[in-house]
């Protein structure tokens, strides 16, 4: 396992800054530690030798300064660590959001829920990673060698002991890890399901009450938690072994160094001052490595988080570069055809679709679709669920991969035509804020009269200053749907767009409201725009100029 993903350093300026600042700090800390050990050893030795105390003011001052510098570096580490975490998180978050925006149709294998987790709690794992693990890692890499050189200079035997023992620690830890991996993996699954036991009981409490099963859960909670304890302890007995290895190696080498120095002192081969110096320094040589071991969990969680994020960025970039399935490229294949036919098409105004094929994850969800819609027309597309209605709209927005010909006013459909299209999806997807904020999304500076008109056309009968919660909570399904429709209408009016796409705008409306909506959409179309709505109910279709039925597709 790599301790630090090199891609993180390549991509993130903040991560590089952290490593540089940390390296400098580690050198400072190593210097202070050596100064402290030297001052303490010298003072003790000289006092024992009976020298006059007056001459030691300078060394005592050095001792205190070194201790203070060490404390200061500890303080700075907190700063560097937390600032590093925050900045790297902000960078990754921004990059990831930008990557998602370039592919609004979705990135393969990435659900919305996973993306939200990845960007939120997922990245938070980097707090501990930068705050606790990486500082110790940098110290191990930078400070430990400096300290060993200092020990070696004072006493090469002790230096040699450390040089031999230190590399053994990771080796032993790896051996313990390998030997216990199988046990761990066996326990893990069981542990996962046991750890959820309490949440399941609480979450299903009303269900348990309905079935008169709630009271007996007290004993069950105890049993499940106790089973969780014994399983976890089995895992921990093994997990803590690697910590034990570290601790044992560190304290045994201190003992080894102390005894070896003691025996050479007795023999008269050595002097007290370097002996004490090495003794004071020895625990500090092992400290960063011990802390790395202690922060092992923080490292795996943080690595996983950064790997997930970086993988996603790489994949997004590879998709964009390779062009396999990227909507932008698919639109380009479409591009050639309308121009070739340009001569035989005297009037390219309106929407023209020929033999359209829409693909999702490489397989077709809609095939052989033809439609022509002239400005002023209200067209309704009918079809059962799964017949590809939503995919058709996604294709017209340039969100989906398509083959065939699709053009708006002679220009091939793609990201560029999006500016002339307004759209409302099957789910309302409102945002936190007022109804007016929602309706004016993306066009906040449009004149107020447009807002009123959009609200009327959408059929919103609520005050525009009503505040909605996150995700537009606080409205019923039908109300939310009408606000979403008004939002699309507002964009159409604000941009003087050509095409209004509405996906099931009446699925949560009662028949009266549905009929009224149909009439208003017709009115909107008469102004010289194209309105294209999908539905599975007859109510909306009655008002349309034209109804296109999608054949039922066998659902996979």
């Amino acid at each position, binding site marked *: 396992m790599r301790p630090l993903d090199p891609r993180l350093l390549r991509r993130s300026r903040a991560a590089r800054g952290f490593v540089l600042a940390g390296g400098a700090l580690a050198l400072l800390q190593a210097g202070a530690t050596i100064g402290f050990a030297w001052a303490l050893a010298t003072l003790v030795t000289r006092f024992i030798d009976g020298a006059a105390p007056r001459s030691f003011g300078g060394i005592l001052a050095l001792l205190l300064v070194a201790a203070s510098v060490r404390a200061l570096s500890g303080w700075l580490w907190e700063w560097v660590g937390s600032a590093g975490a925050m900045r790297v998180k902000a960078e990754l978050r921004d990059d990831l959001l930008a990557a998602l925006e370039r592919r609004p149709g979705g990135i393969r294998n990435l659900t919305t829920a996973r993306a939200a987790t990845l960007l939120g709690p997922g990245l938070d794992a980097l707090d501990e990673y930068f705050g606790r693990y990486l500082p110790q890692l940098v110290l191990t890499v930078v400070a430990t060698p400096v300290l060993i050189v200092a020990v070696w200079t004072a006493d090469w035997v002790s230096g040699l002991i450390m040089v031999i023992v230190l590399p053994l620690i990771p080796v032993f830890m790896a051996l313990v890890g390998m030997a216990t991996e199988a046990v761990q993996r066996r326990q893990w699954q069981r542990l996962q399901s046991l750890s959820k036991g309490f949440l399941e009981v609480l979450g299903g409490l009303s269900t348990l009450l309905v079935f008169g099963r709630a009271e007996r859960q007290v004993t069950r909670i105890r049993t499940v938690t106790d089973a969780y304890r014994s399983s976890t302890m089995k895992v921990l007995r093994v997990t803590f072994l690697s910590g034990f290895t570290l601790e044992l190696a560190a304290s045994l080498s201190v003992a080894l160094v102390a005894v070896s120095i003691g025996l050479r002192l007795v023999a008269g081969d050595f002097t007290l001052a370097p002996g004490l110096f090495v003794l004071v320094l020895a625990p500090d040589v092992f400290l960063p490595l011990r802390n790395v071991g202690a922060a092992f969990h923080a490292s795996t969680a943080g690595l996983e988080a950064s790997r997930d994020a970086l993988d996603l960025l790489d994949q997004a970039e590879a998709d964009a570069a390779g062009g396999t399935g990227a909507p932008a490229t698919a639109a380009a294949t479409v591009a050639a055809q309308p121009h070739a036919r340009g001569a035989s098409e005297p009037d390219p105004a309106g929407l023209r679709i020929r033999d359209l094929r829409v693909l999702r994850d490489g397989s077709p969800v809609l095939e052989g679709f033809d439609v022509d819609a002239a400005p002023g027309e209200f067209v309704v597309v009918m079809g059962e669920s799964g017949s590809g209605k939503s995919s058709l709209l996604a294709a017209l927005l340039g969100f989906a991969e398509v083959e065939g010909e699709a053009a708006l006013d002679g220009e091939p459909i793609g990201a560029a035509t999006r500016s002339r299209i307004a759209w409302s999806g099957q789910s309302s997807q409102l945002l936190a804020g007022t109804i007016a904020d929602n309706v004016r999304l993306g066009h906040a500076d449009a004149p107020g009269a447009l807002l009123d008109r959009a609200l009327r056309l959408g059929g919103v009968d609520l005050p525009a200053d009503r505040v909605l919660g*996150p995700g537009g909570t606080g409205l019923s399904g039908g*109300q939310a749907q009408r606000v979403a429709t008004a939002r699309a209408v507002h964009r159409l009016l604000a941009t003087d767009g050509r095409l209004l796409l509405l996906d*099931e705008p009446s699925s949560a409306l009662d028949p009266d409201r549905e009929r009224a909506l149909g009439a208003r959409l017709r009115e909107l179309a008469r102004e010289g725009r194209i309105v294209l709505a999908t539905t599975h109910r007859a109510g909306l279709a009655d008002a349309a100029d034209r109804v296109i039925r999608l054949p039922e597709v066998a659902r996979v």
Partner: protein
Amino acid sequence: MSDRAEAVLRQAVPPVRRLLPSVLLGVAAGLSSVLLLASSAWLIARAAEQPPVLYLSVAVVGVRAFALGRAVFRYLERLAGHDAAFRQLATIRAGVFERLLPLAPDGLASSRRGDLLARFVGDVDELQNVSLRIVQPVVSAAVVLVAAIAGLAWLAPASALAVGGCLAVGIAAAILAQQVIAARADRRLAPLRGELQAAVVEHVQALEVLVAFDAAAAGRARIRRLGLRLERATRLRASAVGIAAAAMSAVGGFAAAASLSAAEPLLAGGRIDGPTFAVLCLVPLAIAEVASALPIAVGSLRVVRASAERVANAVPEEIPAEVPTTPAEPVALLAPTSTSTRVPAPALRLRGVRARWPEVGGADATAAGDVGRTGAPAALDALDLDVAPGERLLVEGESGAGKTTLAHVLVRFLEYKGSYRLGDAEVRDLDPRDVRRVVGLVEQRPWLFDEDLRQNLAFARDTASDEELLAVLDRVGLAEWAAERGGLDAPVGERGALVSGGQAQRIALARAMLADFPVLVLDEPTASVDADRADALLRDLLEAAGRDRTVVLISHTGAPHELVDRAVTLRPGTNAPVQPGS
């Protein structure tokens, strides 16, 4: 901090006998650590005087023993500490659950919102750290510190005083920084973090909309600004935590210098020898390392306290008036003649029924950004309603008309005013559990346990054989689907992640069929189903429910009226007169 949170914390402290092994092992590990340095220092300083090797052998053995002891005791301490914490966790969880039970489900915030539930469970589980990260390390460290300073005092009282003084100042500074500055920063950080997370979730979920409306870049800029604000707030916290770390790091060096200065006159006066002097000068370093556990524990206490506070808030002290309680002497509800035959469906008769939802976990809900508590379902006002035995009644009405409130009154989750009779009995006089044996509910979002299909069905009737379970699956139209997935062993996933909304409804109905409720309330069974499949699902559900039980079907989108015997409409706000449907 409130008294109730204190009480929650106290309950999380394990009894002495459970704590003792880990504390003793912690003391042994800490003492080994101090004695390792002491014996090493003595060994080296004494060896420099070049005595016969024999005089050093005890120290050599000591050095090795303490080195070994430190590692072994630390390992055992960690195991014993975790074991004690997990044992306590069982007590904590069961205790909290017992306090929740009388309030469940409608008196609890956590049962209304998934995110609150996850946080509540996290908070309860956080309480195990009272033992693991606070009580046990603090007690062990305190014992070691007292013993070590007593040892110093035995060698040189002045040194002990100097070291003790340095420690007291350092620890006090560290704790103060943790308690005051870091606590203030935490209070500022929490809402900012929530805001950022909410913004990210919203951005990702509404990404298609944002792109289609050219609003994505603006949204991303907003998230970047929130990130910057969070970074600034984090700096304050880092400086506080940094002060604590720096204080503990400085304390070792300063204590060593102080001890050295205090012991030097003794050495010069010949009252202590050189090796003792070396011990006095070096041991403060090891003592400071032991002491560094204290500010860390204080930091943990801060986290645990916040959790305890939230747990205390989530469980109201008194049962709100809106939550039904079991009457002291409940009236028996038409006892079934034998356990196997089921109660015949009684008539339901509601007169002037009013009901509303209790205020729950106010602080929690607002902290989570719940705007105006709009999520709380509406009240029910002066409702008259009759449901005849075996009747199929459709209750329609917009969101906010109080349909779910009605469902919860019917199954006795919510208290009511007015009169609600089951047959001849006033429901208020009955044991709520008896009511729920007669009136069953299939919830809007039925909870599926992360087990297999068998366990998700069998808890409704644990005597049911596999054949019976398969038969009921067949009735709700899931036989084929289940067979494809491995029959009753098919997993349903976490919160039913592996099944669709319609399948979850069918499974929930199958459970209700197994429990064989004479009266069945279906609350918005089509809420999480595509609009164009809703009617088909309703048809299947009602057919499976059969004609021999009363069904109250609640739906805001309505239902084909030929499926039901009668339809009524609830109107929000007004006195909710029930109007006869078609």
